[in-house]
């Protein structure tokens, strides 16, 4: 198993262009793409590689790129999504801190392929030091002729700008993100129209996750067939799994899609703290449905997790040992969505508030048994008919918890208190 995204993470000063260029492949992909490939050839190569978005939905990147209009009559934009606000997710940050030039290469190649001259990197506002590292890397790329006018003597021009967000999860949603770039509240837009037709300021726009762009230079250097050979048939390449919670070695692990959840938890992340018993795992960020301890043989790829009734999401794995009170988990998560709903859609605005209220009540020992069906009713009402997917994302974790840990909710109601004396506090 070869790591390519993180291979230089341990090298001293790996964020500098000097180290990046000395590592052999540095900016070779840009050179080859701009001088030896046509935009169509690049999009075909990305399509062939099977690269899927790493921001949560897993949409094929090459296909998305091919939706952009081919003519250059109007300005076109790329937005790189570095909002990274899905609880449990801390992977994009590592690329910025430790190897930002592979991202910049991906952005240049994507821009050339789609005929884009202006790229915005939307980075969450709290990542202040990361924004500085990234700006330094961008400045270095300008100084070395990879950005700006006539890149490497070609007639291709590109500018990359950083846009800092302001602490709102909803700005990670692609249309909320575009509103935010325009200097407005980050309230998602109705789709259609889709960004490739009507994006930032109404111009054609492509939005991809930061990690998605970071795979691109490697695909160009080594070919779609190499990339397709890693992972599974429908989930190709390596990906970054972020492991947090009750494990001995939390962190970001670069592994091929299809690796088992068990291997990630017990081999890479070192197993459960104090060798405790495992109780549940959220496999792909706070929005994905929880799995129980006996389900961890599941392979970590899009199809396998879908079959298991969950989703790979952002690859953010949150591990919980036997001390964990699942009602408290529900409390924390529903609080988050209640706080982050933008309020445009009634089901989402009201639903997130009710869910949190009810779960908090149950945790306090003041719940009624009817509350459980009410929760499921609210959740199913929130699914599928709102402007954006935050509403679904809020419903899923609650459905997941009630599916596998309904007995714990019932026990709170029967005993009129939380029975988990060793659990984390809320």
């Amino acid at each position, binding site marked *: 198993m070869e790591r390519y995204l993180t291979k230089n993470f341990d090298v001293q000063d790996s964020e500098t262009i000097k180290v990046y260029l000395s590592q052999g492949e540095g900016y070779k992909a840009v050179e080859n793409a701009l001088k030896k490939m046509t935009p169509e050839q690049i999009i075909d190569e990305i399509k062939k590689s099977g690269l899927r978005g790493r921001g949560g939905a897993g949409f094929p990147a090459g296909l998305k790129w091919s939706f952009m209009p081919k003519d250059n009559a109007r*300005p076109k934009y790329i937005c790189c999504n570095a909002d*990274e*606000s*899905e*609880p*449990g*997710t*801390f992977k994009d*940050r590592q690329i910025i801190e430790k190897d930002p030039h592979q991202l910049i290469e991906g952005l240049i190649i994507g821009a050339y392929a789609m005929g884009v001259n202006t790229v*915005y990197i939307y980075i*969450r*506002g*709290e*990542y*202040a*030091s990361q924004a500085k590292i990234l700006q330094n890397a961008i400045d270095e790329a300008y100084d070395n002729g990879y950005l700006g006018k006539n890149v490497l003597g070609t007639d291709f021009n590109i500018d990359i*700008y950083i*846009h*800092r*967000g*302001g*602490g*709102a*999860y909803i700005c990670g949603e692609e249309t909320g993100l575009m509103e*935010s*770039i*325009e*200097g*407005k*509240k*980050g309230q998602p837009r109705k789709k259609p129209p889709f960004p490739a037709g009507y994006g930032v*300021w109404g111009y054609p726009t492509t939005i991809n996750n930061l990690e998605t762009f970071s795979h691109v230079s490697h695909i160009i250097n080594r070919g779609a067939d190499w990339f397709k050979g890693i992972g599974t048939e429908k989930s190709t390449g390596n990906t970054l799994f*972020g*492991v*947090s*919670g*009750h494990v001995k070695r*939390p*962190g*970001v692990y670069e592994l091929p899609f299809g690796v088992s959840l068990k291997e990630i938890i017990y081999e890479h992340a070192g197993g459960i703290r104090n060798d405790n018993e495992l109780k549940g795992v*959220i496999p792909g960020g*706070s929005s994905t449905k929880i799995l129980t301890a006996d389900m961890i043989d599941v392979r970590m790829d899009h199809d396998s997790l879908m079959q298991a009734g969950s989703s790979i999401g952002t690859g*953010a794995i*949150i591990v*919980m040992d036997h001390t*964990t009170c699942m009602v*408290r*988990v529900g409390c*924390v*998560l529903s609080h*988050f969505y209640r*706080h*982050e709903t933008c309020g445009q859609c009634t089901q989402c605005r009201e639903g997130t508030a009710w869910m949190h209220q009810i779960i908090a009540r149950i945790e306090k020992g003041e719940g009624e048994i009817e509350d459980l069906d009410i929760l499921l009713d609210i959740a199913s009402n929130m699914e599928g008919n709102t402007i954006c997917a935050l509403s679904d994302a809020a419903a899923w974790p609650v459905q997941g918890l009630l599916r596998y840990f309904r007995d714990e909710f019932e026990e709170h109601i029967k005993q009129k208190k939380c029975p988990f004396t060793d659990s*984390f*506090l*809320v």
Partner: protein
Amino acid sequence: MLSEDARRSVEDSIKKYSQKKAAVLSTLHIAQKEKGWISEETIEEIAGILDIPSIEVKEVVSFYTIFNLRDVGKYHIQVCTNLSCSLLGSRHIVNYLEKRLGLGVGKSTEDKRFSLSEVECLGSCGTAPMMQINEDYYENLTEEKIDKILESLGHAQK
């Protein structure tokens, strides 16, 4: 009023966009860094610089939680209480900070040096529990670590 330096940074930000209004978030970041919070006066000033009605600046300031609409302490301590941090004791961290600083969540110390907030996931889940003070992250927190951090910020030992 924003300083000369800040005004220059704002002018640079405006150049990134095809419309001036898009620079409102950058401008607010610049202003907050200089002033610590966003006052009515700052809102009016920003509206003037960007040629937009002040209501449009106000809307943005109140939507994005990163901007302080009141004068917070010199050091704004924000503890993440989302899931990965909660699992590893962020409630305990909040309680300990409350005790050490003698103040509740959402409050500031009388000398305006410290204020304390709870926030959602900050992307440090692998190094939980964590907090952010102004722009800096402090990770893998323990009581001892908090003591040292507070001391370095001029908060005397108990």
